């Protein structure tokens, strides 16, 4: 099948044994949903398994075709940025992780190979340290890492997995599943290749659609194009650049610099700030009186610790009269059994109903972009036809 590796990798963390199974061929877009297939794999391999997957259109030229997923018993989180595409190019369409590793380690996936790497010394590091260490040890700074932090190790319900340093995808505490499995992270790098059924036709059709959508959406202002919270002057004053996920022509990610001037374009500070795309967290921080600089500082601390920021902010507001960067830091510094208070996910809130969200995500498309651009199933089916030879 086009845009597929037709391979599912299964890793038993207890034994380290890797097995594979074929991805059943199908021509129905609904049945090809990554969420639906992941649900099926979880039924087959155990409900407590962690399933990573990519949509049938992930890595295509359909606008914002960047999304993969992580499915656990706690819920489903999108895998965005370049991580979804890299996962698909790693040689697997789906990866099932089951059991519990005897020692702390990380899963390393590349070139159709998957293994558990023991890394006990890495447990003392926060999520950013783990990502840096994995990239350094494997010698490649383009490795994508879904990383946990100390809160994930402690299996707190208020965890978040960070994707390459940043948070906003995991609003259901899937980070705690990493802790339960004794995993510090999941790393992957993709250097494979994917075929399209009609390369030229798919490319041309996708560009036409993208141009029409971009013209209709107008000038992009990064996160401010998606959230009024990012339109405040103190937020805008710190914006360095807007950053897209793979294939997205209208990004929702704005990088704020707080440790050097926002307009510093040379590579000077190694850790100058944070990539904002977590709308519920930003809203919560501003609601509690933090400014954009303090919110950025708080999000960095939360990402490093692997704690979901809405939950940390809510706890800080319960324990101190005035929420400050320091009071949130006090919450983050100790692992507490608090629950996330975000009632709907960051990206899940893009659509009024969950079924459309899941439908869009399951195809490998970013729900936030497609909600903004207008999710039209017939249009997507047409592009799927040129990419896959199915869908119309």
């Amino acid at each position: 099948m086009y845009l597929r590796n037709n391979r599912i990798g299964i890793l038993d963390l207890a034994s380290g044994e890797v097995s594979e199974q074929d991805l059943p061929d199908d021509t129905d877009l609904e049945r090809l949903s990554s969420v639906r297939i992941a649900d099926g794999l979880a039924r087959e391999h155990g409900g407590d398994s962690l399933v990573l997957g990519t949509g049938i259109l992930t890595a295509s030229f359909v606008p914002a075709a960047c999304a993969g997923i992580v499915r656990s018993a706690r819920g489903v989180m999108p895998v965005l940025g370049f991580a979804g595409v890299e996962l698909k190019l790693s040689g697997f369409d789906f990866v099932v992780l089951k059991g519990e590793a005897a020692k702390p380690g990380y899963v390393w996936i590349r070139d159709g190979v998957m293994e558990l790497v023991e890394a006990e010394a890495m447990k003392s590091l926060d999520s950013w340290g783990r990502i840096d260490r994995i990239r350094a040890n494997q010698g490649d700074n383009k490795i994508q890492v879904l990383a946990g932090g100390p809160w994930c190790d402690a299996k707190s319900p208020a965890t978040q997995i960070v994707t390459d340093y940043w948070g906003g995808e995991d609003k259901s505490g899937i980070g705690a599943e990493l802790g339960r499995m004794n995993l510090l992270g999941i790393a992957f790098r993709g250097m494979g290749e994917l075929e399209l059924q009609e390369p030229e036709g798919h490319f041309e059709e996708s560009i036409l659609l993208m141009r029409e959508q971009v013209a209709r959406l107008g000038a992009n202002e990064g996160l401010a194009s998606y959230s009024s919270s990012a339109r405040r002057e103190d937020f805008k004053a710190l914006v360095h650049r807007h950053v897209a996920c793979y294939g997205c022509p209208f990004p929702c990610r704005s990088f704020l610099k707080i440790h050097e001037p926002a307009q510093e374009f040379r590579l000077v500070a190694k850790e100058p700030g944070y990539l904002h795309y977590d709308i519920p967290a930003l809203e919560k921080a501003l609601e509690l009186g933090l400014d954009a600089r303090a919110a950025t500082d708080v999000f960095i601390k939360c990402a490093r610790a692997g704690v979901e920021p809405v939950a940390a902010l809510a706890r800080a507001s319960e324990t101190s009269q005035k929420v400050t960067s320091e009071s949130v830091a006090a919450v983050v510094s100790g692992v507490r059994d608090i629950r996330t208070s975000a009632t709907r996910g960051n990206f899940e809130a893009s659509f009024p109903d969950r079924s459309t969200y899941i439908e869009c995500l399951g195809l490998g498309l970013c729900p936030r972009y497609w909600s903004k651009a207008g999710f039209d199933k017939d249009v997507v089916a047409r592009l799927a036809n040129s990419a896959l030879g199915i869908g119309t």
Partner: protein
Amino acid sequence: MRLRIDPLKCICCGLCEAACSLHRDAVLTPMSSSIILHLDDKADYFGLVLKTKSEGLVLARPEGVSPGQQSSGTGGPGAKPILLREACDMCGGKANCAKVCPTRCITVVD
């Protein structure tokens, strides 16, 4: 006819790299493109590296465009170094990277 890159217009979407690989090998792969993303994500530092026939490597970094050598880590050790790849042939005049670029970061000039 050549490509002009305005690096500060880049949003790091990666479509140019994908479009280039489609022209080269009729598949999507990060291994064959004549144009690649250079990215230091934690520092939010990103730009493009283009292999041209006439000027060699063109580094389109945020602080400016210049000729030069491939920065370390640009494609990762497992990736085929850009110096070993084919130089840009403008897709036979179609310049697919410029065509697909959503921000006009890459344009075709005479």
